[in-house]
């Protein structure tokens, strides 16, 4: 069994419900391995430290537990997936300067971001894969596996907005 650390953020459709009651339901459903944030109306965030056989089992069981407790909770994000330099530094236990050097000020072509701007955002899985392949940088397998899982989940969340008619033309261009 490994320990996986991840955060799930949900929206709640019914805002009139007593938060303390929701918390009891989450406790009943087995979410006591998460710190629960209730500081924003209509939102719920759970920061888990969960033991499981795999990252996928850890994260998916977390989502299932929340859904069991609160059926109208809708997942909006699993993290760590979308990350900036500061987040990467924290996850690799190095300084931000260090990560900056590794990723931006190096001769290899930097991993492609999801968004270039302030801040620039990457999929963590892509950064870890790139560090491992291009830089021979040691990456913990658990973290790599977790990043793959959260990326797949967030892609699935985004796919709910897909317009299939528009997508077929776009995908042809991206091929």
């Amino acid at each position, binding site marked *: 069994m490994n320990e996986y650390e991840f955060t799930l*953020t949900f929206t709640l459709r019914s805002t009139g419900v007593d938060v*303390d009651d929701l*918390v*009891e339901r*989450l*406790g*009943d459903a087995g979410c*006591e*391995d*998460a*710190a*629960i*944030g*209730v*500081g*924003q109306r209509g*939102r*719920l*965030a759970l*920061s888990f*430290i969960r033991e499981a056989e795999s990252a996928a089992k850890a994260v998916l069981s977390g989502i299932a537990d929340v859904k069991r407790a609160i059926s109208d909770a809708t997942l909006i994000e699993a993290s760590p997936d979308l990350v*900036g*330099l*500061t987040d990467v530094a924290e996850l690799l236990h190095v300084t*931000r300067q260090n990560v900056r050097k590794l990723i931006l000020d190096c001769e290899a072509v930097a991993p492609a971001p999801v968004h*270039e*701007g*302030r*801040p*620039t955002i990457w999929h963590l899985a892509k950064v870890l894969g790139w560090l491992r392949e291009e830089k021979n940088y040691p990456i913990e397998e658990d973290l790599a596996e977790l990043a793959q899982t959260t990326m797949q989940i967030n892609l699935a969340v985004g796919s709910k907005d897909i317009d299939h008619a528009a997508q077929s033309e776009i995908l042809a261009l991206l091929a």
Partner: protein
Amino acid sequence: MSRRRHPDPHIEKALRYAESQGWRVEVLGPRAHGWGKMYCPHNDPDCRCGEFCITVIWGTPKRPENHARQIRRVVDGCLRRAGETDDEQEG
């Protein structure tokens, strides 16, 4: 300190740390899971804690050490972000 102590020493220590950083700990009435809640001192729309501006404290989590770690992380996350507003700007 006038509030009730948390029954677990690891969690109580983490709560004292949160209080030393200005967080307010509110103890709930008796229930099966939730023991209380802690409130970020910068609880305003600009605060970077987001949802964790109000964080639930469990009464008897299976791994109290982990819960204590989570509480500290919420507090440190807030401090880190507070001192870092321009940091991400350079990308």
